[in-house]
């Protein structure tokens, strides 16, 4: 059932060399909020977060809903609300990111596959939405190539977003990320509540992104999907990254997993015993 993950590895002698794309060290994030009366309190949403993403690699960030995963995505893209305060270091291609850099890189070098398919322009045909992101000539040709790669029928390019099913719309979003020149793709819960076939159709193109040499940060609460797609799993709980595990460590009763929470997560899956801590 697993997607062919070996195809992109550098040992296979492909055309790019793996290098460090993103490095997050000691990242923390807090919000200023009001509790009841007049007191301003700071609420620590992310306490300590460390992770790295290399080119051609899919790193899944797995954690409970409300654990601050989406905030991390927004922090990398520089889209935090005004009452947020951050500390720590985010390095992109070895260079520390400033807020100005982020705004500049957003959409050019760092792109996002959003959670909601409502992010598509409702008044523009699917094909055109992809073509506007393509630089250079032969836009139509390139767009058709991409559509074929993500498994979209050619006639879909003439459809408006409301005519697309959820799975198709999601693949259009992925196609947009593919044609952009972005090297780092942040995907925030791109596969919510999909059946087996739709899930397969949605994650295959994400693997294609990595095969192009892009780094993918795949944020999800669903460890099952993460295991099928990712190279590394960063387990996120209670505002901290508690373990970075290799996909191959998830087997049996979780003997190879180091942190007890990761083990619990693995063993709580319906197919693995459905145990509660």
């Amino acid at each position, binding site marked *: 059932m697993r997607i062919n993950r070996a195809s992109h590895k550098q040992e296979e002698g492909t055309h790019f060399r793996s290098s460090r794309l993103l490095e997050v060290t000691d990242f923390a994030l807090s919000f200023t909020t009001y509790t009841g009366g007049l007191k301003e309190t700071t609420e620590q949403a992310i306490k300590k977060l460390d992770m790295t993403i290399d080119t051609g690699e899919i790193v899944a960030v797995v954690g409970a809903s409300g654990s601050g995963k989406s905030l991390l995505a927004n922090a990398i893209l520089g889209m935090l609300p005004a009452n947020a305060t951050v500390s720590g270091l985010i390095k992109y291609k070895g260079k520390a990111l400033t807020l100005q850099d982020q705004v500049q890189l957003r959409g050019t070098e760092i792109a996002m596959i959003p959670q909601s398919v409502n992010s598509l322009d409702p008044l523009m045909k699917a094909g055109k939405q992809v073509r506007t992101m393509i630089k250079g000539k032969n836009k139509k040709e390139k767009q058709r190539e991409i559509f074929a790669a993500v498994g979209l029928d050619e006639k879909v390019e003439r459809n408006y977003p409301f005519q697309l099913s*959820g799975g198709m719309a999601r693949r259009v979003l992925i196609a947009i990320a593919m044609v952009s020149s972005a090297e780092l793709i942040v995907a925030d819960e791109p596969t919510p*509540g999909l059946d087996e076939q*739709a899930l397969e159709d949605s994650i295959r193109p994400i693997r294609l992104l990595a095969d192009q040499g892009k780094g993918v940060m795949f944020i999800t609460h669903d460890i099952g999907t993460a295991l099928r797609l990712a190279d590394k799993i960063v387990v996120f709980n209670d505002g901290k990254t508690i373990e970075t595990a290799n996909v191959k460590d998830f087997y049996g009763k979780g003997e190879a997993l180091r942190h007890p929470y990761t083990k619990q*997560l693995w063993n709580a*899956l*319906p197919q693995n015993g459905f145990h509660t801590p």
Partner: protein
Amino acid sequence: MSEFMFHSNLNNQNNLIKNKLQLKSRGETVLQAREISYRYGTGSWIMEDVNLGVKPGEVVGLTGKSGAGKTTLAKIIAGYLKPNHGRVTIDGYLLQEKNAPHPVQLVWQHPEKVINPRWRMEKTLLEGGTYTDELLQDLEIKKDWLRRWPSELSGGELQRICLARALGASPGYLIADEMTTMLDAITQAQIWHTVLHMVEKKNIGVLAISHDNALLNRVSDRMVDFSMIRDKYETKK
């Protein structure tokens, strides 16, 4: 590790659907959806002539592709939509009644959408009727959550509140429509253990809807493939 008992007869054989439900005894308060047909306006039929039944204390898993109409069926059974044809009955009686809680309560996929964002949790909980300490304990709801706003609770915590609210209306049946899809594996397991416990304790019937067959295999006594009951009409032609 909790030593939780699942219903012993995990019915995982080929899950072929019996179109006509066989009621074991006449006196049972069986929830039945009979010959349900539905379409939006004059569009094509989303489902035609669908039959489905749930007995008290039974967990029925409804699986099928996303967008196939499982949620529409759930909404029809829980009284959110009126079917074009067919009816939903409990023990032969129609469910409609005025200003009383519906006997079939739906638990939705996104708890944050079915909670008034301007209410503290306690008020949301009381919307279902009354709540008891015992119910809170069963659902592992902490007392101090009740003073908080919805934005201050996680998805799993909100879903427990929604579940408590639904159970507070003392329904005969629950429909769990992708109830734990947005939650992490641990929270999913915890919530389902609680639901199965309540099923046993209060003899509630549950229709569990999910695309996750592994989950449905775990929790349900019997599985129904929606495409089979939906396409029955087509195949008959």
